[in-house]
């Protein structure tokens, strides 16, 4: 490993982890509790190609107890090294992952990920989907956390309708772009058009 990439591995963590992680978690919690609503999340400086938002989420939620799956588009020596140094999270296959990172196409097929069991629906994967933007709504949302209706930008609609149909099983999603995140839990009903 050359000096350059070694530096990127060791830098880019939270500057004051307890305080920064608390701040980042608040953004993640607000996102998950209010589907579709965009939140600012910062603090991490992940290797190139990974958004600040996705990096901050990984630092906030991952540790040696959580397997992380990296889709082919984001899987790199630099990211593996960065994650290992800052979180200690093992890199695992999609079938075993607690968290997964990648763009929408590269995360397919979704059927590989754990959706929980009838008795333990919490044992399901959380997918962090890297997006170009979060601000061009194409889907209407309904469900817990939403007062009347909400809208958000999704990479497609059908997959999320199918996921919601599995409720209370299913996957939960964060969408990241730049320093922004939005979330879509399995409890949200998705319709075409904002």
């Amino acid at each position, binding site marked *: 490993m050359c000096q350059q990439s070694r530096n990127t591995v060791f830098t880019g963590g939270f500057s004051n982890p307890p305080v920064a992680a*608390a701040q980042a978690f608040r953004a993640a919690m607000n996102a998950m509790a209010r589907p579709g609503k965009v939140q600012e999340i910062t603090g991490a400086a992940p290797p190139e190609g990974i958004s600040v938002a996705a990096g901050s989420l990984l630092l*906030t939620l991952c540790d040696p107890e959580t397997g992380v799956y990296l889709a082919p588009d984001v899987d790199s020596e630099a990211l593996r090294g960065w994650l290992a140094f800052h979180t200690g999270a093992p890199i695992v296959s999609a079938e075993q992952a607690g968290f997964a990172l990648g763009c929408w196409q590269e995360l397919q097929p979704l059927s590989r990920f754990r959706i929980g069991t009838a008795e*333990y629906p*919490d044992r399901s994967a959380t997918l962090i989907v890297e997006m170009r933007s979060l601000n061009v709504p194409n889907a209407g949302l309904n469900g817990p956390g939403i*007062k009347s209706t909400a809208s958000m930008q999704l990479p497609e609609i059908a997959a999320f309708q199918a996921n919601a149909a599995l409720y209370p099983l299913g996957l939960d999603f964060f969408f990241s772009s730049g320093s922004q995140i939005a979330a879509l839990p399995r409890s949200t009903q998705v319709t075409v058009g904002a």
Partner: protein
Amino acid sequence: MSDYNFAYLDEQTKRMIRRAILKGLAVPGYQVPFASREMPMPYGWGTGGVQVSAAALTLDDTLKVIDQGADDTTNAVSIRQFFEKTAGVATTEETKKASVIQTRHRIPEAELTEEQILVYQVPIPEPLRFLEPRETETRKMHALQEYGLMHVKLYEDISQHGAIATAYAYPVKVEGRYVMDPSPIPKFDNPKMEMAAIQLFGAGREQRIYAVPPYTRVVSLDFEDYPFEATKAEHPCDLCGAEDSYLDEVILDDAGCRMFVCSDTDYCRTRREAGHLGRMGEQAA
């Protein structure tokens, strides 16, 4: 600030709790198991709520802690001091100024906003526990949505007492799926659970976390011919005159004298400061 890590818990514990909170929010009303830690207070004193608060607090938060609605009881005071010391966060007794409210057995009277988080201390998170002691069975019952037993219990209340006698920890159904214990809040508070704030529930001894996102449907179980009723003492508050708040009965002497006062001390004080007076308001003020 002291030599404690921010908000007492170590970072890995907070991450574990945070992951449980997120799954709890994704499946409202479902009890997520978590590895509850020993806290520097006994079980039954809100160790679950304290752990959830510790994982949710940020440095910018203002914390309010209530015990049965009161800010000045032992439990509330000690938890407030705990976080002043270990997290260095601001604290308040005013519901409006708080961003995180940890509560034991009440929901504040003032309507909560989208900027607030309500953390409940929960003793027994499993609503079916007194009907079925085995965890393996109750888990199966939740998985199969087999809640008939709960309705039988409410029916037996009616057949014995002529009405549903459950007055607190009144079971609710969340978003049409999971039956949930709302913690031992009076059933007067049940309708308030459809609120703008995020509600998080922590049970330390029982090692469960669950959550209700804002505006989630929370329906108290009942029957068509015996609909749910949010009851309270038929009385105005003797200090502030409020007719819409939940009341505590206070015995004043051994000659049968009693008074009813708001259980929410902040609500009562705010009203008295605004000039509202109850039957015994003056002598108390």
